[in-house]
């Protein structure tokens, strides 16, 4: 069966990811101290144990889901861990704990969310949760941050970045909302001069939620998240309505917003200046980027070897700049492997979206994959000076509990959708559902109902 094949592929790949992780961990220790770490065997055991646990979860809870998504995430997570362990053993301990929690959350998500479509029913709840998470860091006494951004929340002993989770909640809301109203929005009906615009009552709630979230993110100086979130909504609008005009509209809005932000905020100007010429401020604002470029150049094609580079010259390298550390120690080859892993994840996620039959699942899968892909691009491009640097984490690789946890939840949702697509019984279930629907309609007709006042929900099979 397809399901069995996918699962055995997955098992093989997660074991491979575990071996690569352990190998990288051992090599980094060897490079740094000329000694193999004493805990190598238990380390391998724990890595394999964790990944096999996630794999077994899939066997029970999502047996038909895609077989490469989890191994790819595991590989990125493991490689990131090896680098973090090489940089700072204390952080590595925390990251290991967070990995354990994240894989637990992964299993829990698959357990709780048995059908992705169930999420759509709680769209307003998710909208509320998303907005609440976003504003949390601004609440006095709860949130904190630094000079460049206020993104953190402290509850008891735990610090986390609620924005990471807000993205997922809002993605669910927008996917659900658009699934419901996409035809109405696409149809337009509000004539304004030569334009045929969507009616405000359909578009309104979406615009309000969108604008509010963006305002909050911009207020927190979280440029990366603002950009990511903006892209997400434009993409979802475009896919759901199938109208390219939303792309044009989005591009126009982005250009306006970018110019406005650049002219109004000095920190935006700084980012652009540093992007254009980091050397002009090599000892100041450009220091981190200049050091990242030097680290990448130092790595060259094959890298210095794990543990043999000097990536800690880059301030905060374990967070947003972890890719520079990978590029330094594993070279162009290792860095390309990371890019390839993201390309494959985006490909797999988008395949899930294409194959999904229900519009909500399609939109959600596309949205979640967009979050993953765009976020990876924003930071990879930022570190390599393709785009101005806007601080976001590299999914699965960077140090950080919130990032890891939210990305594993995102992965679980993708797996859930993938599972429903690949479920061999899906077709028959649908046939059964159709049969029941025709039966109900026949019954109603038979009952001599005068007018069918309530048509079925528009969320059926797309034409």
């Amino acid at each position, binding site marked *: 069966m397809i399901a069995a094949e996918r699962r055995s592929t997955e098992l093989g790949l997660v074991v491979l990811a575990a071996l690569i992780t352990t190998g990288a961990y051992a090599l980094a220790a060897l490079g740094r101290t000329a000694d193999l770490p004493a805990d190598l065997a238990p380390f391998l055991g724990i890595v394999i144990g964790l990944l096999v646990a996630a794999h077994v979860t899939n066997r029970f809870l999502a047996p038909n889901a895609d077989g490469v998504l989890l191994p790819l995430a595991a590989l990125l997570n493991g490689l990131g861990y090896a680098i973090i362990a090489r940089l700072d053993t204390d952080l590595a301990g925390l990251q290991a704990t967070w990995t354990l929690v994240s894989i637990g959350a992964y299993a829990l998500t698959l357990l709780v969310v048995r059908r992705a479509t169930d999420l759509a029913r709680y769209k307003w709840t998710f909208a509320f949760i998303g907005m609440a998470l976003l504003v949390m860091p601004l609440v006095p006494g709860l949130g904190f941050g630094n000079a460049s951004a206020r993104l953190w929340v402290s509850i008891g002993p735990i610090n986390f970045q609620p924005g990471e989770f807000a993205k997922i909640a809002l993605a669910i809301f927008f996917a659900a909302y658009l699934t419901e109203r996409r035809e109405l929005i696409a149809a337009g009906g509000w004539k304004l001069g030569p334009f045929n615009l969507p009616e405000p009552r359909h578009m309104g709630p979406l615009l309000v939620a969108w604008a509010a979230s963006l305002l909050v993110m911009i207020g927190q100086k979280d440029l990366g998240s603002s950009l990511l979130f903006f892209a997400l909504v434009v*993409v979802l609008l*475009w*896919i*759901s309505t*199938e109208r390219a005009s939303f792309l044009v509209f989005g591009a126009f809005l982005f250009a306006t917003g970018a110019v406005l932000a650049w002219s109004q905020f000095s920190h935006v100007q700084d980012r652009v200046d540093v992007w254009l010429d980091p*050397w002009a401020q*090599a*000892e100041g604002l450009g220091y981190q980027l*200049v050091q990242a*470029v*030097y680290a*990448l*150049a*130092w*790595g*060259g*094609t094959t890298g210095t070897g794990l543990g043999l580079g*000097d990536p800690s*010259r880059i301030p905060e390298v374990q967070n947003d700049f972890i890719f520079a550390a990978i*590029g330094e120690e594993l*070279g*162009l080859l290792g*860095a*390309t492997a990371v*890019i390839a892993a*993201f*390309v494959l994840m*985006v*490909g797999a996620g*988008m395949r899930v*979206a*294409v194959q999904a039959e229900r*519009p909500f699942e*399609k*939109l959600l899968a*596309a949205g979640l994959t*967009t979050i993953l*892909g*765009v976020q*990876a*691009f924003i930071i*990879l*491009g930022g570190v*390599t*000076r*393709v785009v101005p640097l806007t601080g976001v984490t590299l999914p699965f690789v960077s140090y950080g509990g919130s990032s890891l946890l939210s990305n594993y939840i995102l992965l679980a949702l993708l797996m859930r959708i993938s599972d429903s697509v690949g479920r061999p019984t899906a077709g028959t279930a649908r046939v059964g559902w159709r049969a029941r629907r025709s039966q109900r309609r026949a019954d109603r007709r038979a009952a001599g109902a005068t007018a069918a006042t309530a048509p079925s929900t528009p969320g059926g099979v*797309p034409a």
Partner: protein
Amino acid sequence: MNRQIRRLTIALLACFTVVFIQLNVVQVVRADRYNQSPTNDREAVRDFSRDRGSIITADQVVVAESIDSGDRFKKQRRYPTGALFGHVTGYLSFVYGSDGVERTYNDVLAGRTPELQLENLDDLFSDRSNVGDVILTLRADLQQVARDALGEQEGSVVLLDPRSGAVKAMWSFPAYDPNLLAGHDFDEVGAVRTFLLADPRNPLLANSYRENYLTGSTFKVVTASAALESGVYTLDSFFPPTDSYTPPQTDNPIQNYEGSTCGGTFPEVFRRSCNTAFAEMSVTVGPEIMVDKAEDYGFNMAPPFDLPRPAESSFGTVDFFEDNLPLLAIGGFGQGETMATPLGMALVAAGVANGGVIMEPHVVAETRGPDGNLLERTEPQPWRTAIEPDLARTMTDLMVQVVNDGTARCCMQLAGGVQAAAKTGTAQLNPEGEPPASHAWIIAFAPAEAPRFAIAVMVKATPEVTAGTGGTVAGPIARQVLDAALAAEPG
């Protein structure tokens, strides 16, 4: 919807492709440029972190070595003898670069010569580091004697083997401890350097080979050589005793030391160091011969040396002296613009000692690979031919008389009755508005009949030094060092 999703996928793929292309640009195409960027010190840190060979004296004392530091640079450069060899080894500083042998023999010490690189290939899979050691010609025991003999006086002692040009001891005071500049606490290193640079005596600059001083009467060796070689004068030439000589083009007479009356035969004016006689000699033989002979002895140039940037000694040019005969007259007895490093004056003595041929001075005897195998030995090379062997014998006789019956009689009687040959000098500075001051000099070699050591001692002008002449101040220092050298390397 699927069409949009596919297009979105392609768009994201394109984004990642751009990142990939940019990554190639940064990591491959422009990598060299970034690695060599002035704000990028990764290469420097790597070189600094590598194992590095030792610098060892001729008598097997390690004067520079690398030890494990346990910090980000992995290795710490250490100079076990402190300031004693500071001006020879130089230092290796991350912030301020390197100096001395650390600089000139960096390739060997860092294992970057072709021979060492070849060995590296052999040892690709072994843990051995292929760096070379540098063996100096200097001896730690003689260096210590020189240091003790000079004491706390500003000045310099340069002892070398005239037959090969091998420097046996080269001490300058004030000196500095290179350990202070090789530290990894850059703030501290910066403070030390600022402190050293603020010292008006400039301890960072080795005055033995990097600073020029007025030579005083030691230059009369050159003038006497020019006079005898020209044929205008012979050993029988007689200089009537006088207390002054007035050169052409001026009315200002030149006087002898402390206004004394001085004269006699050629050997007599040499051993008594009569300024009037040598002023007359310089003017009589003329600018061309004088400048030629000075250049034969290595003036107006810097010697080839295996330490960085030796100073150029100066005498003057023919054109200049044609128009300034009074300056030629005073230049002829080592005043005016006649300047040399102590190393340069040691080479003058070495030239006479070695039959007229000055050998290239050097501080490195050989370099050795990781197994102690010889990499390269410094072969003695002639540098200048100062005078013919016959004249060298004559000059030796003249300098022997200086020791036996002249200005150095007080202080150059060597142990065991070994005959030394010498010439003293008292370079009068007469700075305006200050009390008169003079550098005390002596150049010498021994044993006179078969010289094995040549030496120059210079004690810089300070109020205390001025009291004595070259013989009494510098002479005892030269004697102690020569005695020690002859004892350390008998025959």
